């Protein structure tokens, strides 16, 4: 375990995904002014990365562009060989047992389709049934269930190239799940979707995890995906984990504050109550901040007893701010 990965208690032997001191470097050749030959350089995409994921967890895997998210997923699925450390998924070494592992995992990309462009959705699904050798009964049951849940019924005979992005995405998700994978990797699944499609997709994923205990590992830039789905977040920056823990813990770690917005009946001097400080005043409205982990109740009570209050509200810290803070601190 690396000191940077401040994680929950280790999950023990039940861990489905096990990553230890993982490292991947790429050799690149770079042109250098004044030299005839390009210079060989080693670029580190992932280093000292360790974490475990237990069966049934929903984990958000987030980080800025180029942090190493996709590289990690490629190593977890076996299409990229690590240059150091080790990976186990369901007891298999992904790069050595890639084909065997492929039967037990599902992968969804927001920006690529696993479906066949020129085939109707139904034909793509049929091809997948043969590819994964899904027993016919199981296949039919799964197909019916996903078609219903993902509302694909009237789209089954449409060629994939004619589907809208949202429909294609739902088709892709069904395609990734037909063979009952133990783990589902989702790489920015909600990218480009409208608000309604996003929330339906999240609902579906939550139901999937609840019903079947499918483990989800989700990379995204949309933190609402994380808030809606994941109990646990791993934040990666510059190839290494800078945070591993609960979403709530991320707030605490970020030293974030909540804000109490007070609308007084009349303009007044800055409110003075213990445990909170005034950040901003605009006419009769004042913004008080207090630590995220403190209770709001005594502060509200104190304000209400000492001032004439018209209205009160509490603002939770935006997770975006917390994470931005985390990235910049790593710099």
């Amino acid at each position: 375990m690396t000191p940077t990965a401040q994680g929950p208690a280790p999950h023990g032997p039940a861990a489905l995904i096990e990553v230890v001191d993982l490292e991947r470097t790429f050799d690149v050749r770079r042109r250098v002014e004044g030299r005839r030959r390009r210079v060989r350089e080693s670029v580190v995409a992932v280093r000292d990365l360790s974490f475990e994921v237990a069966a049934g967890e929903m984990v958000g895997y987030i980080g800025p562009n180029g942090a190493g998210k996709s590289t990690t997923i490629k190593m977890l699925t076996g299409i990229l060989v690590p240059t150091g450390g080790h990976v186990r998924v369901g007891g298999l070494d992904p790069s050595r047992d890639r084909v065997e592992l492929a039967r037990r995992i599902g992968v969804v990309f927001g920006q690529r389709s696993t479906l066949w462009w020129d085939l109707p959705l139904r034909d793509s699904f049929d091809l997948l049934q043969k590819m994964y050798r899904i027993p016919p009964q199981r296949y039919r049951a799964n197909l019916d269930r996903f078609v219903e849940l993902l509302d694909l019924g009237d789209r089954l005979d449409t060629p994939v190239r004619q589907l809208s992005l949202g429909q294609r995405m739902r088709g892709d998700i069904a395609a990734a799940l037909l063979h009952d994978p133990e783990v589902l990797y989702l790489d920015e699944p909600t990218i480009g979707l409208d608000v309604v499609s996003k929330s339906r997709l999240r609902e579906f994923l939550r139901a999937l995890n609840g019903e079947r205990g499918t483990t989800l590992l989700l990379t995204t830039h949309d933190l609402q995906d994380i808030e809606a789905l994941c109990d646990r977040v791993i934040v990666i920056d510059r190839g290494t984990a800078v945070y591993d823990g609960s979403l709530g813990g991320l707030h605490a770690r970020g030293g974030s504050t909540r804000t109490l917005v007070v609308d007084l009946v009349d303009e007044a001097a800055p409110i003075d109550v213990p445990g909170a400080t005034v950040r901003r005043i605009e006419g009769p409205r004042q913004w008080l901040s207090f630590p995220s982990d403190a209770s709001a109740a005594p502060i509200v009570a104190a304000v209400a007893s000492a001032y004439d209050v018209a209205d009160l509200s509490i603002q939770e810290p935006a997770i975006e701010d917390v994470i931005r803070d985390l990235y910049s601190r790593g710099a």
Partner: protein
Amino acid sequence: MLHVAVASRAFRRYSTYRAATVAGIFTNSVFGVIYSYAYLALWRANPSAGGYDSQDAVTYVWLGQALLMTIALWGGGATDDLAERIRTGDVAIDLYRPVGLVGWYLASDLGRAAYHLLTRGLAPTLIGLIAFRIALPSSPVTALAFGVSVVLAVVVSFAIRFLVASTAFWLLDQSGVKVMSGAFAIFFSGMMLPLVLFPGWLGTLALGLPWASYVQVPADIWLGRHSGADLASALAFQVLWAVVLLAACHGVLRLATRKVVVQGG
């Protein structure tokens, strides 16, 4: 059964391009006529060149035209799909699947080849038969052996095209290598000139290279120039190259996933 499904899907996909098929058959036939007259002139000057008589020579021309698309002499077919998917990074999706990449694309290319054989292979053969009275296989065994030989020709050609497409893992684009490989294929397959006419060491070399499997070997089997043990060794020659080259495909693929970035995040 998956691979059969993949092959039949490729067959159907190509069969949607009807106009292209008709135009292609026309082109093959025009070239067949031109080559036939050129060869007839050549064999009038030397009636037993390369051990062929003039009917053999004309038959060779039409077999070449019939095999041109089936073996994808110029490149193309399923391996072009692969090169494109490597370039865009979509090959990652192929790698996530619980099937070998080589077998998958081979199945798809065989489906394509079957379509091309039935259209762009059969039609020129019939035209050659009517217009130039080309020779037909002398026995069912010869015809069967020719069929096996054509399948092997497609496999050898596929493996070479797969290797060419794989260069995209390193070069991002296969087109330069593809053009070069196409030039070798045209020369050494016997498409331009039967390899039996190549002089001395060049002939020996050409008959030992994998491209000989494309046209020369199947044509000689059709013409009945191989029989008995000789026929077996002609087919064994193709099998050997097919096995060696497919093994190379697997090796290159392993190397690619070890060394190379799959494009895109």
